[in-house]
Structure formats: C-alpha cells, structure tokens
C-alpha cells in the first residue's frame, strides 16, 4: 500500500454519550478509509452519528475508543500544538451555520487562518483576495457576514477553509441552511475545488443532491457504517432514490 494513498483512516471508532441513565453509542466501531482526492459524502439521518464521525475525523472531538489517522499520523499521538497545526494547515472546516466571525469583513475572515499560520499580513491579504475571487466574491471583500446572503456567507467560509492549502476539506451539512438553488451552487463549487485543486472533500450531509457529485457515499445508521457505495453503483440507483425520505 502506498503510504499516501489514504488521507484519512479510522479504526474502530467508538464515541459514547451518557445522558442520565441512558448510554448512547453515537459511534459504534467505525472503520473508514478515505482516498486522497476523493469526494466523499457521509449520509445518514440526524442522530445517526454522522456529525460525531465528522467531529472525530476533524479532531474537534476525541473518540472514546479507536483511532483516526490523518496522512498516516495517529491524531491521538499529537499534542495540542501539533493538533492546532493540523487544524490550521491540513484541514479546512465548513459548517452548516457558516461560523464566520460576525464583526470581521469577508476578507478578514478569510485571512484569519493565514494569521494563525504566521503568514505576513500583505501576503495573507493577497491570498485572501485570490480566494474570494475564486469563490466569486472578490467584489464584496469589505462586507460583514450580516451584509451577505447565506450562500455568500458559505462561499466566504469555503474560501476561509482553503486559506492554508489544506489537503482535506471537512464540510458538516454545508447546504443545511441554504435553499435548493443556493445549495446546488455550493455543492458545485465544492466539486469544482475538489477537481481543480485535488483537495479531498468529506461532507456529512442528508442532502441527496450531494450524492450526484460524490465519488463514494458512506451510509451511517445507529453509529455504524451501513454501506459504502461507489459512484458507479450510485448512478444506477439514482432514479429510484429521488423522493425517498429519511
């Protein structure tokens, strides 16, 4: 096996939440290998554990058992500073609620990760403008998030996720707060970035539009992987899937 074939691998991930007497295994032994440059969707109804899986892969939350390997590095072996480096340089995050910093302009938001990476200010601003142009918002660089529509805010968030040239983009329900058409535009943009820049896109979603563009779809149910479908198979089934609701 080539050392860098897989960008993310998880081994026996378990995450347990205790609510009073009740013990919920949000993740119950998840093994998942994600190839470099892949566009992968993690699908499942709410409460299936997909967000928990997403957070574990992104190092935003620690699993109770099992390991996550990013570029063959066990995340549990990293100290706080190495984890911060990973979040800064290797992973770009996109959230359902955009999570832009409300008091900062679009450009300042996009530039923030370059500040944490120690990039000189001028270079960071240049990089920020380049990215805003890439997502089609170069002309609105001085606007605050509240002055932008949902779709535009998500574009800014995508530009921010790309700031330090990550190898992985993690998107948690990126279209969850957007209308149909805007959601499609965001999906197209993610797909384009995946193709053009070779960045691996991992998206937790229950948006069926995502299925169309994914290389693979991972179905999660009750904290376990129910099935993994390759794109070729999805194409055959897509007709039957429309209208199906979780």
């Amino acid at each position, binding site marked *: *096996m080539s*050392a860098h074939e897989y960008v993310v*691998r998880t*081994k026996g991930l378990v995450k347990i939440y205790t609510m009073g007497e009740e013990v919920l295994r949000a993740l119950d032994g998840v*093994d998942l290998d994600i190839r470099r440059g892949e566009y992968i969707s993690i699908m499942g109804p709410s409460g299936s554990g997909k967000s928990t899986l997403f*957070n574990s892969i*992104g190092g*935003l*939350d*620690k699993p109770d058992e099992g390991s996550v*390997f990013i*570029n*063959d*590095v*066990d995340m549990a*072996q*990293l*100290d*706080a*500073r*190495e984890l*911060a*480096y*990973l*979040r*800064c*340089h*290797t992973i770009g*995050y996109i*959230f359902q609620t955009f*999570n*832009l*910093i409300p*008091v*900062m302009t679009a450009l300042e938001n996009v530039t*923030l*990760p370059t*500040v*944490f*990476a*120690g990039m000189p200010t001028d270079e960071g601003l240049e990089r920020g403008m380049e990215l805003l142009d890439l997502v089609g918002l170069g002309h609105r660089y001085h606007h605050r998030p509240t002055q932008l529509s949902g779709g535009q805010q998500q574009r800014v968030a995508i530009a*921010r996720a790309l*700031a*330090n040239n990550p190898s992985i983009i993690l998107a948690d329900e990126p279209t969850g707060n957007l209308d149909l058409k805007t959601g499609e535009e965001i999906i197209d943009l993610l797909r384009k970035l995946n193709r053009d820049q070779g960045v691996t896109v991992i998206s937790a979603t229950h948006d069926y539009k995502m299925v169309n563009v994914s290389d693979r779809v991972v179905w999660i149910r009750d904290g376990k992987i129910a099935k993994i479908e390759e794109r070729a198979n999805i194409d055959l089934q897509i007709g039957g899937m429309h209208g199906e609701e979780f």
Partner: protein
Amino acid sequence: MSAETPDQPSHAKAGIQKQIQLPFSKAWQISLQGIRIRWMRSLITASGILLGIAFFSFVRTAGLFPIDMTDKEAVSASNRQSWLAIMALLVCFVGIMNAMLMSVTERFKEIGTMKCLGALDNFVVKLFFIEAGLMGVLASLAGWVTGWVIMVLLHLLSKGTEGMVSAFWIASVRELALSVGIGTVITLIAAVPPANRAAKMPPIAALRSEI
C-alpha cells in the same frame, strides 16, 4: 485490515509540525482591532465598569475631606460613608462581573471557530487578557475621574475649597491607584477564567455552547 494499519514510531508525525506561537505584538494588534470593530459593544461593557468605579470613587472621595471631630452629625455621616464605600465596592464588583461575563460568553462560538482555524489555546486567552486588561484600566480610569470630579464639584459648591489641602491631593492619587487596581482586577477575574475555560474545551464544545 490489520496488515494495513500504519506503524506509529515516534517519527511517524511526518508533515505535522508544532503550530507556531504568535508574538505578543500580534495578539496586541488583534485585541485592539477587536475592541475597535466591536466599538459599540465595547463601550457598553466599558460603561458597566466605568459606572461601578465612578460610584466607588465618588463615595471614597467624599471620605477624603477632613471632618470636624467635635461635630457629632459629621462623625456619624462619616461612619455611614464607610458603609456606603463597602456597598459601592459590592455594586461595582457585581456590575463589572456581569458586563464582562456577558461579553466573554457571547463569544464562546468565536473561540471555537478560532481554534478550528488553528489558534492555540494560550493565544486565545492572551487576546481576552489584553482586551479585558485594556478595557479594565481605561474604564476604571475614566470611572475614577468621573466620580472624583462630581464629588469635588459638589464640595466646591457647598463648602468651597475648604479641606482641599495637600493631604487631600495625595490621598486622591492613592485613591486613583486603588480604583484602577480594583477595577482592572475585577475585570480580569470576570473575563480571563471563562475565556480560558472555553479555549481549553474541545472546539466542538465551544462551538455548540449557546447563551
């Protein structure tokens, strides 16, 4: 599957370095910008501190004027004054705590976001320390001046320059240092521990926190 498990010798952290520590000047710059772009919100928080310290300083300044120890009424007024000063301290403590706790907890999500973007815990804490420290010093200073000026004006109106001897001026400077010290310390106590707690949380916990 087990054959494919990557080895994990100590050199297996290939490509992962330690995140750089940003210099203090960068934190200072970001904190100043933070106060500036949140100007109205900062002013409201600062006025909470200002009012608390102004009340405290007003009461304390009243106590600086010498009293006639043979005048029973003046002596009992002076005793009431020291109780009032303790009350004022309590009021300003609660006021500042409230203002700062609010302004920090409403930014927990921002702390979580910054951590996702690669900010180190201690950098986030540094930002809040600088911001709270600056607001504490400036607002306490303004608060002390406000309270002192109002008390002195009232005194001038009723008793003229009586009692405004050198001891009064020296005591005023001491009171200034005391007020700014108390104001800044309370501000930092209210702001830094919660910011520190949020920074130490896993990012997802800080992001999820609702207020």
